[in-house]
Every structure is written in structure tokens, then in C-alpha cells.
């Protein structure tokens, strides 16, 4: 036990005395959270739109008023004719045009059916989809208020925004960034730390000592577990106080699941350090080999459901995908452990598998 503590203390010295490590350890998560939270959101705010109202009846005017009232849209112009729409897209940098047909109100009353045309700038498909969905939802909510009897509802859009009705981008990004940061930091740090000992030759001295492989591996992981945990707290604090992200689920559950992901990532890092021989190699494997898969297959940047089947299958081996699913459910939907136990089990299985492999693969000799 004393040996173990002494090893852990030594490991802390290494971290605290290396400014670059410290910067990477604490600078990267903060930078990423801020970057993803503020700069890279796909949230829509004050999106410029134009309306072309042929109807000019109370109904169309009320819909326009409702659009204007929402924080998301900014009606910059009322067009006289649909022919001006294209010019408006080109000249005014608008994202959406809404066309109300002639005699909207009468048509709805007589035919129980009316069509409002929404034209979006398809050159940016993500924004187009988001703003279209949002405009549709505003119109629908107006219809629901106006005609509570469901048989009169004839605008058939199936999009429904739940849990994130304001389409706040950060709600999706924060769990994603948490997954990304915890995964990268933990994998990178541990993989480099063992390889460092191999490279500097200290592993040679360490091997010719009563230290067991299990001890080396575990005591290497402990400091990074602690530091990643501190990171987690920082990320959560930033999300809640800076990005106004509510934590709807249980905090202990979030912490528990995050610790599980950290341990998974640490085990992965230990495994990488066992198969590489230099810090550079370890860095390349853990950064290049991890960054892209984690970004792509976690699901917070590109929806996994939209990927081709083979890629969907591959995404299952990325631990952060499971973690992202769990955290999104717990943090935003506020569900309990009962709803995420399956994903938790998968993560747990991965952790055990990686840990056993990295301890088994730990080279007790040189060469």
C-alpha cells in the first residue's frame, strides 16, 4: 500500500511539474466546452426571414405576428410577390421565406385544408432543416391554439421538438463535449505516461523491482482518474453556470457514469501504451486514432441513425457513443438508472475487457 501511494504521489509530481501536461489537461476541456458551447452551436437565433402574404387575412397576420414574436426569427421584409423571393435570398442573406396563399382562411374553413409554403435556403442543409422545423412548429402551435378540435387540424407535419423545444444547440453539445474531452484526455494522458517511462529508461529500473505489473498499471491510472474527475466537475460547472444547461437527471448518476467512461478510457490508454514504444507513437495513436472516431461515432455531431449500416455497427465499439446516449438521457430527459442500465452494462463490459487486456499485455520484460 505504501509503495502504491508513493507511486501515485510520484505520478502527481510528473503531472504538476510539466506545464504542457497541465495546459493540455485543464486548458483543452475548458476551451472545447466554450468553443462548442458558443461558437459551434446550430442554435437558431434571430434568423432573418421574409414573408410573402397573399392572404392578408386575420389568420395570416396572426401567424406572421407569432413568427415575429419568437426570438428565433426576424421578419425583415414583407414581399409583395413571390417573384421577389429569390432576389431576397440573394441580396438580404435570409434563411427562410414563408408564402401565405390567397384566401388562406376561407380555404381552411371550406376544405379543412390549407397550405403554407416554406422555402428554405438549401445550400446549408443543417440550418435549412432546423429553421424549417422550427417555423413549422410555430405554425402548428398556432393552429392548435386556434382550433382546439383535432379534426380541423390539417397541416400535416410530423416533426416534434421535445426536450429541447427551443432547439438549444448546447444541450446536444455538452454531453458530446463531455464524452469527447473525457475520452481524449484520459486516453492520451495514460498512454503517454507509461510510454514515457519506457522511453526514458525508467521502466527498465522499475521492472527490476518487486513492483507487480498490476500495481504499475493501476497506480498509473489513479492520478489520471482523479484529474479527469476534476475536469468533469469543471465541465459540469461551466455547462450549468455559463451555458445555462439544466441538469434534469440525478447528479450522482451523471458522476457515476462519467467515472465509468473515464475508467474505460484509462484502460484504453493503458492498452495503447502497452503496444507503442515512444511517446510520439502513443500520441499519434491516441489522438489520430481516437479523435476522429470519437467525433464521428459519438453521435453529437452527426446523427448515427443517418449513417450507412456498416458505420452504425462500427459506432457500437466506440465507448463514448454509449456514454453520450446515457448522459443525454440523464442530463436532458432526466431519466433514472432504470432507463440506462443497458448502456451502462455495455460500458462496464468494455472497461473490464480493456483492463484485463492491458494488464495481461503489460510487458514484464524488455524487447
Amino acid at each position: 500500500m505504501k509503495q502504491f501511494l508513493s507511486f501515485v504521489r510520484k505520478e502527481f509530481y510528473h503531472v504538476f511539474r510539466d506545464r504542457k501536461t497541465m495546459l493540455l489537461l485543464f486548458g483543452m476541456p475548458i476551451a472545447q466546452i466554450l468553443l462548442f458551447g458558443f461558437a459551434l452551436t446550430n442554435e437558431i437565433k434571430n434568423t432573418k426571414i421574409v414573408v410573402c402574404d397573399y392572404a392578408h387575412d386575420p389568420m395570416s397576420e396572426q401567424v406572421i405576428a407569432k413568427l415575429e414574436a419568437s426570438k428565433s426569427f426576424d421578419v425583415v421584409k414583407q414581399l409583395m410577390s413571390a417573384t421577389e423571393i429569390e432576389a431576397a435570398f440573394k441580396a438580404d442573406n435570409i434563411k427562410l421565406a414563408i408564402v401565405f396563399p390567397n384566401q388562406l382562411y376561407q380555404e381552411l374553413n371550406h376544405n379543412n385544408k390549407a397550405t403554407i409554403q416554406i422555402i428554405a435556403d438549401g445550400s446549408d442543409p443543417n440550418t435549412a432543416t432546423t429553421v424549417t422545423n422550427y417555423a413549422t412548429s410555430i405554425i402548428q402551435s398556432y393552429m392548435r391554439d386556434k382550433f382546439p378540435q383535432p379534426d380541423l387540424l390539417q397541416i400535416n407535419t410530423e416533426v416534434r421538438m421535445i426536450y429541447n423545444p427551443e432547439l438549444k444547440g448546447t444541450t446536444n453539445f455538452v454531453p458530446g463535449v463531455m464524452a469527447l474531452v473525457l475520452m481524449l484526455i484520459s486516453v492520451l494522458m495514460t498512454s503517454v505516461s507509461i510510454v514515457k517511462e519506457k522511453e526514458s529508461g525508467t521502466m527498465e529500473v522499475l521492472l527490476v523491482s518487486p513492483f507487480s505489473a498490476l500495481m504499475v498499471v493501476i497506480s498509473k491510472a489513479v492520478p489520471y482518474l482523479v484529474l479527469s474527475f476534476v475536469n468533469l466537475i469543471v465541465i459540469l460547472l461551466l455547462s450549468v453556470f455559463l451555458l445555462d444547461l439544466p441538469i434534469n437527471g440525478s447528479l450522482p448518476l451523471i458522476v457515476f457514469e462519467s467515472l465509468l467512461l473515464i475508467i474505460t478510457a484509462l484502460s484504453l490508454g493503458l492498452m495503447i501504451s502497452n503496444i507503442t514504444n515512444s511517446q510520439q507513437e502513443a500520441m499519434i495513436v491516441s489522438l489520430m486514432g481516437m479523435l476522429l472516431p470519437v467525433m464521428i461515432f459519438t453521435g453529437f455531431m452527426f446523427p448515427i441513425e443517418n449513417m450507412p449500416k456498416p458505420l452504425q455497427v462500427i459506432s457500437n465499439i466506440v465507448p463514448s457513443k454509449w456514454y453520450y446516449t446515457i448522459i443525454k438521457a440523464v442530463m436532458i430527459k432526466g431519466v433514472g438508472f432504470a432507463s440506462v442500465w443497458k448502456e451502462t452494462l455495455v460500458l462496464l463490459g468494455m472497461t473490464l475487457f480493456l483492463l484485463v487486456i492491458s494488464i495481461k499485455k503489460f510487458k514484464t520484460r524488455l524487447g
Partner: protein
Amino acid sequence: MSSISIREINKSYGKGTIAALKNINLDVAAGELFGLIGPDGAGKTTLFRILTTLLLPDSGYATVGGYDVLKDIKQIRSSVGYMPGKFSLYQDLSVEENLRFFATVFGTTIQENYNLIKDIYVQLEPFKNRRAGKLSGGMKQKLALCCALIHKPTVLFLDEPTTGVDAVSRKEFWGMLKNLKREGITIFVSTPYMDEANLCERIALIQGGSILSVDTPVNITRSYGEALYAVRSENMPLLQSDLRTMSEIKTCYSFGSFHHVTLQVNGSSKVFELLNSTHPSFEWKEIEPTIEDCFIKLMQHEK
């Protein structure tokens, strides 16, 4: 009782293409200061790593302190002290932190075995808060020796401890080893410096993975078996090529400011005649062979 015994150890690298050790047999008595002398690439480090259980031999076996290097890995690793050729301490930890760390790893404390390292550590004490990476070469070696000694090992393995260390520190270092020997620790040390061979009780000359000779330094030089001469003139390169073309000369090797020469036949009058004509100011004297002379001779013999 022998502290280290090596029997028919073979080791090769690169899937058997490069033989690093060929049929090594060696015995080191308990409490002996034993030197493994040979140039770079002779196989010294490979042998050290096999004895410290860091590498597996292809064939053969060895025991260290009575433990089998193939089976009793744990016992060997906790009872020997090992100082690799490359400085292998934590550069970002201070002198004291390094020492304390290694003491704890071996389940002991600095105080417990302080008497063993005292003589060496007093020199390090003024720098005890300095990071190991900022120490001079000689100081680094002293610290590494302290760390290898802190658990009072029965056998101490020192792989080229004096490489890259200045002449004064080297001398000091060997003085420390002499003192440690008095504590009853078996010391197995390797060096590429032939002049350090005389500081060992017994030495093994190693070259190309084979042991050329094992004996006390005195016996090795005594067994040289022929007269050796040192020759010098104002034009050394020309002197060497001239000597080498003479049929009376058996061998001629450059040794610093002299050429060391052995003769094919007894009597050097014929050689003097020849030299007088081309190198009028030449110097010629008979000398005692050094370990290096023996090494070169044995090496030639091996070929």
C-alpha cells in the same frame, strides 16, 4: 559459492539473424568485484538484461544469488540492484524524491540502509532539492548508484556506470565500488574502458558475443606470452605502414602516442636497421602488456 553462474547462454536478435551472445559460461563468486570488459556492441548489456530477468535467453540458464533467472523472477527482482547504462531516474523529480521513491518501491526507507549509501549521498546532499535532470553527469551516476543500493541488494549490476563521466568522477566511482565490496555485496560491472579492468578483482573479456578470457587482470596480462615493444617516431602514420610491411614484425597497433609491436622472430637488430634509414629519430622500448594489448591479441586469435 558463486553468486552469479551463467551456463551456455545464447541470445540472438532479429529472429536469430544477429547473434548477441554465443555460448556464455561464467561464474562470479559471492562478494567479488567482477568486470565485464568489451567494446560497444560486444553483448554486455544483453547479458546484464538476461541476468536481471529483463530478457529471456534463447537457450542456457543462469542463477543470480541462487535464484533461477528464468523462474524466480520475483526473488531476483527484489534482491538485486540494477543500474542501466542509460541514466534511468526520474529527471523531473528531485534527488531526494528519487531516492525516497526507490526506497519505498523496494519496501524500505532511506534511514534503514543509510549507512550503505552514506559516503556517496553526503556528496549529493547539498543538491538534494535539485531535479535529477539538472545534475552533472558524475552526480547523476552517484544518484543512480544510491537508488540501486538503497534496498541493500545482494548482487549489484552496473552496466557501464562510468561511460560519459569525466576522469575524476570515474576514479571516485571506482573508489566507491571498492567500499561497497567491503559490505559483502557482489558487484558485476561492465565497462568499455580497458584501463578500468585493473580495478576489478577478476574480469571477463567479451567481444562479438563471446567471452575471450576470464581471469584476474594480472593473470591476463601475464599470459600475453611474448615480448611487447612501444615504438615512436615523428611520423607515426608512416611508421605504422612501414612496420606493417616488415616481415620481422608480427603485429603493430596504434596506442595513443606509441605503436605497440610484437616481433615474428627474436632480436630486433634487423628492424632497427630498417627503421634507422627511414625514421632516424625513432624511439623503441620494451613494455609490459596492458589489458588492451591482451584484448586485441585474443580478438585476433578468435578470428
